[in-house]
């Protein structure tokens, strides 16, 4: 059963610097989304940073800008198995739950419990304090199939051009 991290975020969640959360309907952000070197990315807008035997996972700046203020996060419990491309949890924003998918297969070793009280960390610091889970990858070679920073940035630009 998923560990439900209950949110007590107010409507005054922290805004990101580029202000994409203030974009009017129909909303797609044309501001620059932060894409970090050293991370790999998925086409469904998750990032993964592999260091040693642990891979840290979250959603990208592009994703959080499009989702809006995150008010609730649902994450798995440590020990849960995750599979590349499959959902492991969800975020709630603007009356919608959105699945978050794992970039790699493996076992969850740690969950970001700060997201319980401060789900807005996903908006304010998507690549750092807003990390979601840490996984011990079962097949590190899966990382080779993911997008690099340049490819991911191009994907974001193509999506926002529609």
């Amino acid at each position, binding site marked *: 059963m998923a560990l439900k991290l209950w949110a007590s975020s107010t409507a005054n969640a922290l805004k990101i610097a580029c202000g994409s959360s203030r974009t009017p309907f129909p*909303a*797609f952000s044309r501001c620059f989304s932060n894409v970090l070197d050293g991370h790999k990315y998925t086409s469904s807008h998750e990032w993964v940073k592999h260091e040693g035997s642990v891979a840290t996972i979250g959603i990208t700046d592009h994703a959080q800008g*499009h989702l809006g203020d995150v008010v609730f996060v649902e994450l798995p419990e440590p020990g849960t198995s995750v599979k590349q491309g499959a*959902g492991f949890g969800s975020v*709630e924003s603007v009356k*919608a*739950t*959105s699945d978050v998918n794992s970039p790699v297969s493996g076992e969850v070793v740690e969950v970001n419990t700060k997201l319980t009280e401060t789900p807005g960390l996903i908006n304010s610091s998507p690549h750092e304090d807003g990390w979601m889970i840490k996984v011990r990858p079962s097949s590190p070679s899966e990382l080779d199939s993911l997008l690099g920073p340049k490819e991911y940035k191009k994907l974001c630009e193509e999506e926002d051009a529609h």
Partner: protein
Amino acid sequence: MVSYPARGVIRPVMNLIKLKEFSILKQLYLEEKLLRSSSENWCIINNGTKQPTIVMGVSGRPSELVNINSVIRDQIPVIRRFSGGGTVIVDNGTIFVTLICNKDDIPGLQPYPRPIMSWTGQFYGEVLREFGDFHLRENDYAFGSRKFGGNAQSITKNRWVHHTSFLWDYDVSNMDYLKLPMRAPEYRSARSHVEFLCRMKEILPSKSTFIEGTIETLGSHFSVRPIQSNAATNLSNISHPPSTRLLTRPELEQALLSASENSDTNSSIYAVP
């Protein structure tokens, strides 16, 4: 601007299920299954649900949203659904319309909450353009500044659900089961449920006007394929563990207890020694 399939482009198929007084709990189970286990588009229209039922969003806390003592006393079911958003109390005066779509079947629509909300808002604007002063107000459907429809979404990698509960009519006394929500749109302006909501039957001539108008507008975007309502029962047999849940009485009692303990703790902090 709502996007339509270009001329000459075959419209994607939209399976249409029309139900009457189908259990809202079973409807939500069906929606989750179709979202996650089907690759087709579905529209479910359910004309009412027999028993008054409270439906909270995925992050809903009964202690904050519901008058639990009354709910337990009167045995009102409380459901936590799989989508986001707020709390509603539904009954046989509610018309439910659900769209379950592949993200690529609506040209140019990005699978994020605000674009989907914008598209569906314009869709219902088309349905209701001859009636009332329709607005999408801070993600609610309103005539003027009075809400008549609440909606929510659930988005997966390649598909999304947008479901709406439309207030054709409602029982004012049922609103007493709900607390005023802590998270409320600005345009609500702290109004009570009665001052904030309006009944569609005050604006439209009949339920069928709305339902058939919705189906007609659906046909502008999709190739609508009616599915026999008894097929819904067969679809319900698709195996998929739902995250939508009916809260048990012990859970509601525990929520009441926790709320009361928190209240006592807060009181003691500020108590004069």
